[in-house]
């Protein structure tokens, strides 16, 4: 059980990184509370697996420190960090039974057999493995094997955190949901710190209390799923989370206000002054509506997404998406669009304009 602190963490796979792009992980400062459920979310190659391996001790960072509670574990090997990890591809000891697999971490640590039996039975019940305890682990399906991996982490009482590296990759779609709910349930029962790495927003948002969104080696936002959706701190978050993602449209800045397609827009935040590089407004398709006044637009395409229709419109020379409830009327050809001011934001150089501090 531990609070995990990452302090000024940087990592590069190169011996002598020169360019900013040489860093797999740029400056990172994070604190994870004991017992929380966290997700590390980001596209492939964003550095999330690197970060996970640094936490588990399989990799030593080039710079910075990792603290478990107040103990510096930066240079400790994995076995002394008391963490457990569930890998992308199920790792089980093929020749052992499910029981022996679960008992393995305890036996390696010299736990007496009576205690082993108690723990294994308890964890097997928790992970629905009781019926299979006597079976060979090799004979199980992928989800069964992932449960064993997880069980090997849960069975130990000294575990500081359980790390998951995209654990549902090889699981059949219809079982993904089950296993995910199981994880959530287990987290509530054992209240261990769990860190879940994924590139799938559904997995991250349903599992975690707090999600860390990463992009090209950098943390772009940390927040609850609601915060990520409602107040993206970076256009990347807006775009990556939500389906379809946030509309990001280039704009001009005049006296702190956004000007798009010749119109001054009311927004939730103000920009102090125009940026040299990029000035954009971001608004989610959910927060755009057709109305009688507003921006001139042209409807290009309508696609049915079940309870919603996704309308692709062209406005001020840019394409944007509008989410319309099923059954609601959609104007054909020309229309007027309105952005809901509380949910429309100005972004400069990618970041939310006027945000108080770096994440």
């Amino acid at each position, binding site marked *: 059980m531990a609070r995990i602190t990452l302090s000024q963490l940087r990592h590069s796979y190169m011996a002598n990184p020169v360019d900013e792009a040489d860093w797999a992980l740029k400056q990172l400062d994070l604190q994870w509370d004991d017992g929380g459920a966290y997700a590390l979310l980001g596209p492939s190659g964003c550095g999330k697996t690197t970060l996970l391996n640094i936490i*588990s001790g*399989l990799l030593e960072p080039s710079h910075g420190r990792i603290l478990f509670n107040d103990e510096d574990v930066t240079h400790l*090997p*994995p*076995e002394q960090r008391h*963490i*457990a*990890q569930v*890998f*992308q*591809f199920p*790792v089980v*000891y*093929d*020749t*052992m039974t499910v029981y022996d697999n679960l008992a*393995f*971490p305890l036996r*390696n*640590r010299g736990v007496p057999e009576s205690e082993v039996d108690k723990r294994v039975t308890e964890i097997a019940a928790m992970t629905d493995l009781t019926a299979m305890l006597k079976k*060979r682990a*090799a*004979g199980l399906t992928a989800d069964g094997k992932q449960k064993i*991996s997880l069980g*090997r982490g849960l069975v130990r009482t000294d575990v500081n955190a359980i790390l998951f590296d995209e654990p549902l990759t090889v699981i059949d779609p219809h079982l993904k949901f089950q296993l995910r709910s199981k994880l959530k349930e287990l987290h509530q029962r054992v209240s261990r710190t769990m860190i879940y790495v994924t590139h799938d927003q559904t997995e991250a948002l349903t599992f975690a209390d707090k999600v860390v969104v990463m992009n090209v080696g950098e943390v772009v936002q940390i927040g609850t799923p609601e915060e990520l959706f409602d107040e993206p701190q970076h256009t990347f978050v807006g775009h990556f989370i939500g389906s379809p993602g946030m509309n990001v449209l280039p704009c001009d800045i005049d006296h702190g206000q956004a000007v798009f397609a010749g119109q001054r827009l009311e927004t939730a935040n103000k920009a102090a002054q125009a940026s040299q590089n990029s000035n954009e407004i971001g608004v989610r398709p959910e927060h755009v509506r057709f109305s009688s006044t507003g921006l001139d637009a042209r409807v290009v395409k309508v696609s049915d997404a079940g309870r919603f229709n996704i309308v692709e419109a062209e406005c001020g020379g840019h394409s944007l998406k509008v989410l319309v409830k099923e059954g609601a009327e959609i104007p054909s050809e020309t229309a007027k669009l309105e952005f809901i001011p509380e949910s429309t934001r100005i972004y400069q150089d990618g970041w939310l304009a006027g945000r108080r501090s770096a994440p």
Partner: protein
Amino acid sequence: MNKTVNQKAWFLVLPVLLLVAFNAIVPLMTVVNYSVQETFGNNVFFWAGISWFEDVLRSPRFHDALGRQLTFTFTILLIEVPLGVIIALAMPRKGIWVSVCLVLMAMPLLIPWNVVGAMWNIFALPEIGLLGKTLNAIGFDYNYTRQTGDAWFTLILMDVWHWTSLVVLLAYAGLVSIPDAYYQAAKIDGASSWAIFRYIQLPKMKRVLTIAILLRFMDSFNIYTEPSVLTGGGPGNSTTLLSIDLVKIALGQFDLGPAAAMSLIYFLVILLMSWIFYTVMTRDEANQ
């Protein structure tokens, strides 16, 4: 992989079938033919029934050769397999040294067998060979052409030299195919080196080791050229293995009947033992 039933696949197999049948069945029939006949030269043959088989099976000469063969095969298996695994475990996994090790280790495998025999013949000569001279210099009375023990020692050392690399290569191939995640999981589970070997490496190597043992078993049972060049079966008959004895009978004495009968018995012994071994080694997998 689920395969589809397709009898036309026979056409794809046909060339192999014809070629191997030509090579295997015709000569095998010839052998069977000889094994049941008696000849007094001039290509005149008489039916001899199974008398040759009875003779061979009863002859002490065959028993001795078979005994020597079994001793030889099991000795080299007992040395080469564990040694090969140990070396494979100790080999580097990455970098330039992998290539260096693989290339150097594979060298003995590609030397013609009679050259291997000749090389060791020279290498072990007590007067002018490095091994023979060294052993004598440090106080051993070593002479493989005169003393049975020394001949066996040289023969086994030569085979270990020649073939351990095959086990190494196979075991190594098995080892590098283990994903990193297994080692990482084992580290996290606090497994000792022995536990990693016992529960990860050995199970993953099982398949290739089965192949290695089968190949070494079959090939060592067939071994002819190297020992015949090294010791010629001597001193006396002390290192006369099955193949050497067979060639002595067939080509040396032209006793075709007994040689043929012996060939068949010999072949059946290999088949039977390979089959038993194969069944035992793969039974586990079938159970799952």
